[in-house]
C-alpha cells in the first residue's frame, strides 16, 4: 500500500486538493507556513504515539475492548453516591442532548443559535421554579465551582473575608472551594450536631467580618438542614449572606432554601438527568434573587428574553455581558469559558419531563426509600445510624458496635456484586439510595450486611447496639 495518507477526518489531504491549495497560496510545502517557528523548537522526529487504528472498525474494536473491561453499576447493585448519583435519565433527555445541532454547537449568535439560547433560558427558568428564585446562571463547571464562586461573590459584595461553614461538607468539595477562595476568604468550620448545623454556635461566630454563612443541605452525609431560616437570620443580622449549597433533586417535596431566607443557592445538577459517567457529568448552578448587586457578581453567562423586529417572536440575548471576562478580561467577574451548557440543556429537558408531579413523586420516593434503608440497616444488630436528622438519599451507618470496619463490609459485599456505599471512616459507611434502588435491592443490601455482621459476630462476641447511635 503506497497510497498517500488520506484520512477521513482530513479532506484536504487528498493529494490533488492539497497541491491545488498550496499552489493557490504560492507555497511549495506546508513547511513554509511555519517560518516563524525557529528550527531549534521544531520537533525533529515523529511523535512517539501508539500505532493508530485508521480503519474505523479497528478503532471500535480497540476502544470497545478497553471499555468492555469496565463493570458498570448496571452489572452491580450500587449504593454509591458521595457526589455522583445513580438517578434515572429519561431517554428523551439523551435524545435531545445527542442531537448534532446541540452537541456540536458552540458560541453562535442568538439568530443561528436561537435554539441554544432558548433551551438554556428555559433551563434557567425551570431551575428557578424548582428553587423559587428569579435568577439562575448558564451552568458553570460543577457544584464545587458554583459553591466556590458563590462564596467569592459574597466576599466581593461585602468586602469581607469571613465564611462560616455550618455543615458537613464533602471533603473533596471543601478542598476545591478552599483552594479557590483562600486568597480572598477565610473558612471557619463549625462542627455540626446530630448531622446538621449548630445554629447557636454559628450565630455566635458571625461578626461584621463575616461575608457569608455556608450551609450544605443535604450535607455530606445526606442530612437535610431544617434550620435554614435561623441561619439566614444569623447571617443577615451581621450583614452577611446565606449561601446554601444543595442538590435540587428534593425540591419537589422539600421547601426550597429561598423560601427560608437563602440569598445564594448553589450546587450541582448531576442528579437532574445526567448519567454517572464515572463522575464526569457535573454542572454547577448559582441562583440568586433578581437583585443587581448579586447578579452583577455572577461570572457565568445569563441569557435573557428580548423582543425582535417581529411582534410575538421570542428573542434572546446575553444579560449584562459587561460583567464577564469575555468583555473585560481580568476586570470581569472571575472568568467565563466553555463550561457545562449541554448538561444544563439536559437538566432543563429533565425538569420539563418530570413536571411538578414528577419532582414531587421523586422526592417522596427518595425520602421513603432512604428512610426504609435506614430502618432496614439500623435494625441489624451492631449497625447504627450516626444521627437522627432527616435524610435525603444518603446517610451514614456505623459498624463500630459490630467491630466490623467499613472497608471489610465493602470488600465482602463487592465480592457479592454489591457496592454497599463509600467508606467514610474506619467504621462508617455512606450509603446512597435513589429511585433506582428498589425495596428488593435495599433488602438485598440489608441481608448482605446482616450476614457480614453476623459472621463477625460469631468471630467476635462484642455486644451489638441496635439503637440509633446519636439518638
Amino acid at each position, binding site marked *: 500500500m503506497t497510497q498517500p495518507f488520506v484520512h477521513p477526518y*482530513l479532506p*484536504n489531504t487528498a493529494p490533488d486538493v492539497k497541491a491545488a*491549495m498550496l499552489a493557490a*497560496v504560492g507555497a511549495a510545502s506546508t513547511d513554509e*507556513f*511555519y517560518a*516563524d*517557528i525557529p528550527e*531549534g523548537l*521544531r520537533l525533529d522526529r*515523529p511523535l512517539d504515539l501508539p500505532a493508530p*487504528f485508521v480503519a474505523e472498525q479497528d*478503532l471500535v474494536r480497540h476502544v*470497545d475492548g478497553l471499555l468492555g473491561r*469496565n*463493570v458498570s453499576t448496571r452489572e452491580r447493585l450500587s449504593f454509591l453516591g458521595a457526589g*455522583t448519583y445513580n438517578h434515572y435519565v429519561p431517554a*428523551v433527555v439523551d435524545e*435531545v442532548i445527542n442531537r448534532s*445541532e446541540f*452537541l*456540536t*454547537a458552540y458560541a*453562535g449568535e442568538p*439568530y*443561528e*443559535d436561537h*435554539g*441554544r439560547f*432558548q433551551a438554556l433560558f*428555559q433551563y434557567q*427558568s425551570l431551575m428557578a*421554579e424548582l428553587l423559587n428564585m*428569579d435568577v*439562575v446562571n448558564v451552568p458553570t*463547571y460543577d457544584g464545587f465551582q458554583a459553591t466556590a464562586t458563590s462564596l467569592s461573590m459574597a466576599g466581593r459584595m461585602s468586602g469581607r473575608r469571613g465564611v462560616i461553614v455550618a455543615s458537613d461538607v464533602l471533603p473533596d468539595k471543601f478542598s476545591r472551594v478552599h483552594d479557590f477562595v483562600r486568597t480572598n476568604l477565610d473558612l471557619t468550620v463549625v462542627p455540626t450536631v446530630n448531622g446538621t448545623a449548630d445554629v447557636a454556635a454559628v450565630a455566635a461566630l458571625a461578626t461584621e467580618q463575616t461575608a457569608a454563612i455556608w450551609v450544605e443541605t443535604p450535607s455530606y452525609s445526606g442530612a437535610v438542614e*431544617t434550620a435554614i*431560616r435561623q441561619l439566614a437570620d444569623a447571617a443577615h443580622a451581621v450583614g452577611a449572606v446565606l449561601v446554601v449549597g444543595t442538590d435540587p433533586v428534593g425540591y419537589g417535596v422539600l421547601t426550597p432554601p429561598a423560601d427560608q431566607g437563602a440569598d445564594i443557592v448553589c450546587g450541582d445538577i448531576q442528579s437532574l438527568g445526567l448519567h*454517572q459517567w*464515572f*463522575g*464526569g457529568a*457535573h454542572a454547577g448552578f448559582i441562583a440568586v434573587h433578581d437583585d443587581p448587586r448579586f447578579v452583577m457578581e455572577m461570572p457565568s453567562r445569563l*441569557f*435573557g428574553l428580548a423582543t425582535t423586529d417581529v411582534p410575538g*417572536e*421570542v*428573542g434572546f440575548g446575553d444579560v449584562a455581558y459587561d460583567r464577564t471576562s469575555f468583555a473585560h*478580561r481580568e476586570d470581569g467577574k*472571575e472568568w467565563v*469559558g466553555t*463550561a*457545562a451548557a*449541554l448538561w444544563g440543556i439536559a437538566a432543563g429537558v429533565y425538569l*420539563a419531563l*418530570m413536571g411538578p*408531579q414528577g419532582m414531587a413523586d421523586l422526592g417522596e420516593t427518595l*425520602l421513603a426509600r432512604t428512610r426504609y434503608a435506614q430502618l432496614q440497616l439500623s435494625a441489624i444488630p451492631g449497625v447504627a445510624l450516626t444521627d437522627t436528622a*432527616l435524610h435525603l438519599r444518603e446517610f451514614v451507618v456505623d459498624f463500630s458496635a459490630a467491630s466490623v470496619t467499613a472497608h471489610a463490609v465493602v470488600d465482602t459485599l463487592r465480592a457479592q456484586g454489591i457496592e454497599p456505599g463509600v467508606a467514610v471512616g474506619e467504621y462508617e459507611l455512606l450509603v446512597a439510595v435513589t429511585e433506582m434502588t*428498589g425495596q428488593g435491592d435495599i433488602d438485598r443490601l440489608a441481608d448482605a450486611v446482616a450476614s457480614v455482621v453476623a459472621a463477625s459476630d460469631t468471630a467476635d462476641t462484642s455486644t451489638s447496639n441496635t439503637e440509633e447511635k446519636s439518638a
Partner: protein
Amino acid sequence: MSLPIAPKPALRRFHQARWDEPVIFELTTPGERGVLVSRPEPGVREAVGDVVADLPAGMRREKPAALPEMGQMRVLRHYLRLSQENLGADFNIDVGQGTCTMKYAPKVNETLISTPKLTELHPLQDQGDVQGILEIMWSLERAVAEISGMHSVSLHTSGGSTAIWTNIAMIRAYHEANGEGEQRDEVITTIFSHPSNAATAKAAGYKVITLYPDADGYPDAEALRAVIGPRTAAIMITNPEDTGIFNPRVKEWVDLAHSVGALASYDQANANGILGITRARDAGFDVCHFNLHKTFGTPHGCGGPGSGANAVSEALAPFLPGPVIVRDGDRFALDSDRPQSIGKVAPFYGVAPNLVRAYAWIMALGAEGIKAVAETAVLNNNYLMKKILEIPGASAPYATGRRRIEQVRYSWQELFEETGISSEEIGIRASDFGMHYWTSHHPYVVPQPFTLEPTESYSMAELDEYAAVLAEVAREARETPEVVRTAPHNQTVHHTHHDDLDDPERWAITWRAYQRKYFS
C-alpha cells in the same frame, strides 16, 4: 419547466428552520405527565409511613414547583424543534469561532462512549471494575505528555479556562512551597493571549500586567523585559496568539521568566496548527494546558462540557490536582496520597466521555495523522486568508505578507469606514447563508474584528463557499447596506433588541422574573 435542472447559483439559498415555539411554560396543560417515576413499594410505604406528611414543620414545600405539565412527545417535539433552530458544527462551515477550533467531532466517538460501561460507571467503584477507563485515561495522559513534551498530565478540568486556573493554582502553590508566595504577586500576559489567562490570574489574587505587541504584531520581548522581575510569579501566554501569529522569540520569553525565578505557563488551546511540529516543554515551559474540546476533537456541546488537560514539568508534577492515575504492570490505580497537590479542581477525574473521545481521536490518527492535522489546518488557514484578503474592505492587521499558523484575526475596518457596516452586522448577515462568525474579541485592539480558524476539517470547496459568502455580504454592505443592517432575513428570528438586557429593571433572566416584572 422541465428537466434538466438549471445550475445552482453561486450562493446557497438558505433558510434556517423556524418553528416559532413559545417558551416552554406556555405549553403547559394541567395533568399531563412527561415521565413517570418509580414509586415506593407497598412494603416501603408500610414501613416508613407518609414521609411527606411527616416532614418537620416548614420543610414541606407548600406550592408545587411551577414547572410545565406536558406529555412526553410534546416535550420532545419542543426540544427537537429548538435543536433545528441551532447551527451545530456538523451543519455549518464552522470556521468563524476563531480561537475555538471547531473541528470534526467524529461520530464514531459518540458510539464508543454510549455504552453503560461508561455512562453508568460510578467513580468510586471497585478499581477492579474500572480498569478499562483508567487505562484510557492513563494512555491519554501519556499521549498529551508526548505531544507537549511535559512530564505529567492531569485531565480533571472540564474546560479550558478552568485548566488555566489550574495552571495558576499550581504556580501559586509552587511559589508558596518555595517561600515566595508573598513576594511574587504579579502575572504577565499579552493582549492577544486569551482573556482567561488574565482573568484566572486575577482570581488567584495576582496583579495582571498585559503587554501589547510590537508594530508588526509580534509579542514584544522588550516590553516583557521592562516589566518582568522578582515580583513576577509567571508569564501566562498563548502561542500562536489569537492573531494566529507565532512568537518566534518564545524561548527567549521563557528564559527571561526563568531568569527572574518566574514560571512560564503556556495556553495551548491554540495548538491545532503545531501538533507534532513544536512542543511546549521544548521551549522550556513549566506548565501548559490543552483544550481537548478544541484540539482533540471532542464536541463543544453548546458551551461545554469541554475538557482541559494540564501538563507540567517534573518540578511541577507534585502540585497537580489529585488523585493521579498510576500504572503498575497491567493494573491501573488512583493515587490520592499527594501532599503537595493543590487538591481537587473538580468532583472526580474529569469529563470521562470527553476523555474517551479525545483518546479515540488520537488513536484514529496516530503520530502521522496528528501531524497531518496540524499541517492541514495551517494550509487551510493560509488558503482561506488568501481568499479573505481578496475581499475589498477586509484586512489582516500585523505581520503583513507573512504566513499565519492556524487562524487569523481579520478586520473589516476599511469596509466599516466606507459603509458604516460593522463586523457584527456582517457576521449576522452571514447567518442568512447558513454561516456566521463570533465577534467577542474584546478589547477591539483589532478594530471591527473577526477571527477565522478553518481547522483541518473543512474541504477546500467549503472554504471557498465561506469566503464567497463574506465577499457577497461585503458587496451588499456597499451596494445594499439596508439588507445587511436589517439582517437576519432567513433566520429563525429577526433582528433582536438588546437594550432590555443591560437594565436591571427590565432584564428577564427567567420566566418567573419575566412574569413578575411584566405581568403582575
